[in-house]
């Protein structure tokens, strides 16, 4: 059962990632990315990471993908059909990606010496994650909060319109 679920999710993820990377239309890329994110959330749920699965759907699908779609809409003139984008450096990119995939698979399947069995099924991880956040990972948590605040302020500062541009 879990094996079938894993293969279904893997096919969904890889197929929509391929569609994201190879599609000529940016809107198609963005919506393929949606299915890729949802499949990754399913993989998280299979790995007993329930909190992270929900976080993945909320942050990636609800936040980042919406932001990317806004980026697509705001930076392309839809009326002039300039949504098409073409590919360059096709052969070097293919070679580098294939070499990287081959070396990663070599490391994983040949030289990997980690344990391949899985421990018992976990209960919900929300309580443990909450406790870890305010005890062992308190300093990274605060740092990431400040980074997020600075990033939001900086992004809204960068993206605002200048007064001269508004007048002219």
């Amino acid at each position, binding site marked *: *059962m879990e094996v079938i679920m894993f293969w279904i999710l893997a096919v969904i993820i890889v197929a929509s*990632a391929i569609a994201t990377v190879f599609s000529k239309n940016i809107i198609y890329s963005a919506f393929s990315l949606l299915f890729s994110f949802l499949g990754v959330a399913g993989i998280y749920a299979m790995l007993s990471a329930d909190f992270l699965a929900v976080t993945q759907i909320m942050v*990636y699908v609800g936040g980042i993908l919406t932001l990317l779609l806004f980026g697509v809409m705001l930076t*392309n003139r839809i009326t002039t059909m300039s949504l098409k984008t073409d590919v360059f450096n096709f052969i070097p*990119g293919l070679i580098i990606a294939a070499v*990287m995939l081959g070396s990663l698979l070599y490391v994983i399947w040949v030289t990997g010496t*980690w344990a391949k069995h899985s*421990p018992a099924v976990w209960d919900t991880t929300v309580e443990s994650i909450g406790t870890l956040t305010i*005890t062992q*990972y308190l300093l990274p948590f605060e740092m990431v909060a400040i980074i997020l605040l600075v990033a939001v302020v900086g992004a809204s500062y960068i993206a605002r319109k200048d007064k001269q541009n508004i007048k002219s």
Partner: protein
Amino acid sequence: MLPTSPGKTNKILSPEEGKLLESLTLNHFLTLSAILFSLGVFGVMTRRNAVVVLMGIELMLNSANINLIAFSRFNGNLDGQMLAIFVIVLAAAEAAVALAIILNMYSNLKTVNLDEVDQLKE
């Protein structure tokens, strides 16, 4: 063992359910993540539109998260999941800043094609 409240979060639900993941090894998840990472690298290297390059970066971050959570699951502690949470937060911050830069680039240069943006000033 989980560092907090052991025995409560790491308990076995039932013998059959504990066995379900045995046919799936860690290598399955690592292979999926490697394929996803290579596709992200390919997208970053070959696409011309800056927004699609951002999508490739998001794919790479997702594959790293799959790796972290799979190792966390198979090692039996929650450190990988905590790291994955921080990765998700940083991905959100990165996407916000990068899209602000892309919007600025579009309003200044009227293009988001990365091969046409090759000058430091107008």
